């Protein structure tokens, strides 16, 4: 189904590189047309993630009850976790409730997208291509800048974000460009790159241990061949480690977006 599966079968091409992330079109006839790279495992998992989230929440809230059913409880605790422990904690009661839907959607979407990294048969997250985290980073950038400009006005917003309170005047020429770079330009880049690089590295680690097992198995020496079992055991251990990273990165992305919004909403000093 995927290129990496073919690589597995071939047993060659050991040090996995950037090529391991290129996916073949499902319909080979489309490869030279405008629809190239439209039907691949990656796009499929993105659409399926969206579908899972929409269908699950519509289904969970079909008949809301005061004593929640199991599925309603699951949906409510997912929303309540981000709403209470991230949104309201960071932004306060009023703004927290206002931004909770956005942050929860972001969290769950990234969570489901990342989760494809450990689903058998797919085993690659769409987030290991920079395009998807970059889009989410840009959305977060638009949101926190728009919120800040709407609350303070353009000039005052720039003043709040670029001039830390209580800094002496002589250091301002150095401080203002740095703060501008950090708070306006680099935030979406780091946000996207963190998520991307985590999923990229995770996929690479799994590939190294899986393919390394095959390389060891193909060697002539019996003792080296038996080490391949160890390599595959490490693949399994790393898959569990991936599970932690998946949840943590979705949480961190949401938390940082929340903190950026908090920084935009802060009152003037």
């Amino acid at each position, binding site marked *: 189904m995927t290129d990496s599966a073919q690589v597995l079968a071939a047993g060659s091409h050991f040090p996995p590189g950037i090529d391991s992330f290129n996916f073949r079109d499902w319909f080979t006839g489309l490869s030279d047309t405008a629809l190239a790279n439209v039907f691949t495992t990656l796009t499929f998992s993105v659409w399926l993630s969206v579908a899972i989230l929409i269908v699950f929440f519509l289904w969970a809230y079909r008949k809301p009850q005061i004593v929640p059913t199991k599925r309603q409880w699951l949906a409510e605790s997912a929303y309540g976790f981000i709403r209470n422990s991230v949104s309201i904690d960071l932004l306060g009661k009023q703004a927290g409730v206002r931004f909770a839907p956005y942050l929860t959607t972001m969290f769950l979407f990234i969570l489901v997208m990342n989760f494809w990294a450990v689903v058998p048969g797919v085993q690659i997250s769409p987030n290991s291509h920079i395009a998807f985290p970059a889009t989410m980073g840009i959305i977060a950038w638009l949101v926190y800048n728009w919120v800040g400009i709407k609350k303070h006005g353009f000039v005052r917003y720039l003043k709040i974000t670029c001039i830390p309170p209580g800094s002496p005047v002589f250091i301002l020429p150095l401080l203002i460009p740095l703060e501008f770079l950090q708070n306006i330009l680099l935030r979406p880049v780091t946000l996207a790159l*963190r998520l991307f*690089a985590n999923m990229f*590295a995770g996929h690479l680690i799994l590939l190294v241990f899986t393919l390394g097992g095959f390389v060891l198995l193909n060697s002539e020496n019996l003792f080296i061949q038996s080490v391949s079992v160890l390599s595959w055991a490490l693949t399994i251990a790393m898959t569990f480690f991936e599970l932690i990273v998946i949840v943590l990165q979705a949480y961190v992305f949401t938390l*940082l977006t929340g*903190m950026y919004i908090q920084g935009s909403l802060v009152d003037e000093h």
Partner: protein
Amino acid sequence: MEGTLNVVGYGIAALGPGLGVALIFAAWITATARQPESAGITRPMLFMGFALVEVLALFGLVLAFALS
């Protein structure tokens, strides 16, 4: 011997973030051991600090591929 020096470079670049992440978790464990009730308050700070330091190691990883 064959291969690329980028890998060695990344190994060196991962030293600093590794120490940084270790310091952050050590500080959090110390704080939580002294005052267990504060765990909930400091946990977001833990993850934020962890994420900010960890990204430095990941920059190195991305650059090791991008510059090869």
